[in-house]
């Protein structure tokens, strides 16, 4: 009960600045906390507002969804966390319909980075990440289609997990791209990340896993070095050295994998929202409405080729996992940009800021690989993270390496 009251007090004190929450559930949280029991007893948590919460409308960051009826039931992941004693305290801000990497939302305002409120928190699960980074909750849930857990985890300097595609139930959450959507947790410690994941998943438990003896760990070069600012890449390299990972590998087809994810995202999201694009385009977020329209007009041949390239790319990466067990890569090319910033430079190349924050995460989620995102340091006072990547269903390896990194 004390932790829940501290969390509610922290939200009251800080959220007028950070703007992480779109709903705070004080009555529900206190009622749940009174009867909480289990391995996560009394731990407050928040969820991105695309998760169904009983008696609350699932906004998914939109104005349009305000017209939907309140959800009849919590999403299964909320049910599992509460069955383990955790206490839901609120719903968090996000990019509209998860289409963005910055949580600059015109309807609900931008979520601000707790390390510097002039900068974005990352997205699209920016409210969840900022709530954890600001100490308002120790645990939060988000979704990751192209990097929406890993980008904000990196920008906010906290732990994040994008499990293998299909690992965690997506029922009763608002979709973005069915072929690519994942759900997962953020936490202020690796231990809580592991324990919360364990109560949501049905596989081998990862909490307490340690030891990297015999693991072949490599740093991703090539595409991942070329698309990262030198100071950020240097932090990933230093983390790799701590793990005694001296080998550098190139993830074959990463650029094509990223392109496939981009094309699949454009097409599926445009098609998903086509009915409302026809009826009420003026009600969409101005930052995405024309992107959605363009996606809806895309030829089917591009989408189908992108899906086949995904298969081709998957096979190449599986061949690489014959030679290494875990791959390390920076999570974002740079630290968080300023709110409203339209472009940034990577190794001297100027590019649009909002879509390119996901340059390093898209090639990984395109083929559903599990990733723990670990904080590895700061550049110009802002945090950046590193992806710890393994083959499908090998979250255990991600956690072993993360634990080792945390110890050094």
């Amino acid at each position, binding site marked *: 009960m004390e932790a829940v009251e501290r969390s509610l007090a922290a939200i009251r004190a800080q959220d007028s600045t950070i703007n992480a929450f779109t709903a705070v559930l004080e009555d529900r949280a206190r009622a749940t906390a009174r009867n909480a029991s289990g391995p996560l007893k009394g731990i407050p948590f928040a969820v991105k507002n695309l998760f169904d919460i009983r008696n609350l409308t699932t906004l998914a960051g939109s104005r349009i969804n305000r017209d939907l009826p309140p959800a009849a039931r919590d999403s299964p992941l909320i049910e599992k966390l509460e069955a383990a004693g955790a206490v839901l305290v609120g719903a968090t801000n996000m990019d509209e319909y998860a289409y963005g990497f910055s949580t600059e939302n015109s309807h609900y305002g931008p979520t601000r980075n707790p390390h510097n409120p002039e900068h974005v928190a990352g997205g699209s699960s920016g409210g969840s990440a900022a709530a954890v980074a600001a100490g308002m909750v120790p645990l939060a849930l988000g979704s990751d289609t192209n990097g929406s857990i890993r980008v904000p985890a990196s920008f906010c300097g906290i732990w994040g997990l994008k499990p293998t*595609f299909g690992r965690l139930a997506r029922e009763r959450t608002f979709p973005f791209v069915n072929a690519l959507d994942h759900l997962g947790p953020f936490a202020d410690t690796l231990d809580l990340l592991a324990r919360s994941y364990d109560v949501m998943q049905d596989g081998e438990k990862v909490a307490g896993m340690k030891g990297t003896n015999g693991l072949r760990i490599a740093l991703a070069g090539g595409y991942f070095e070329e698309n990262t600012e030198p100071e950020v890449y240097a932090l990933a390299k230093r983390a790799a050295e701590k793990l005694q990972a001296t080998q550098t590998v190139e993830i074959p087809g990463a650029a094509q994998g990223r*392109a496939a994810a981009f094309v699949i995202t454009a097409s599926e999201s445009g098609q998903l929202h086509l009915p409302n694009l026809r009826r009420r385009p003026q009600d969409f977020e101005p930052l995405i409405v024309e992107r959605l*329209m*363009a996606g809806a007009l895309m030829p089917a041949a591009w989408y189908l080729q992108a899906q086949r390239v995904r*298969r081709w790319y998957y096979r190449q990466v599986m061949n690489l996992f014959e030679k290494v067990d875990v791959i390390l890569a920076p999570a974002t090319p740079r630290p968080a940009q300023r709110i409203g910033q339209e472009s940034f430079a990577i190794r001297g190349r100027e590019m649009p800021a909002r879509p390119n924050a996901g340059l390093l995460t898209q090639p990984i989620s395109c083929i*559903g690989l599990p990733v723990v995102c670990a904080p590895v340091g700061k550049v110009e006072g802002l945090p950046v993270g590193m992806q710890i990547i393994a083959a*499908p269903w090998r979250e255990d390896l991600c956690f072993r390496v993360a634990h080792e990194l945390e110890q050094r």
Partner: protein
Amino acid sequence: MIRKEEVPGLAAMVGLSIEEKRIPSVLANLQRIEQVAQAVNAVELGPEVELGPEWRP
């Protein structure tokens, strides 16, 4: 690249009516997708390559 005059026809095929003021931005986004799709379309695939994999626990 896709041209401005092609946008209304593409939109009509999916039952979408796009206001004139939005067309330059929709075109720019479509051309961006087209540019990225070139990297995908350039991959030569044999007929045996199926659509992307799905994983289930």
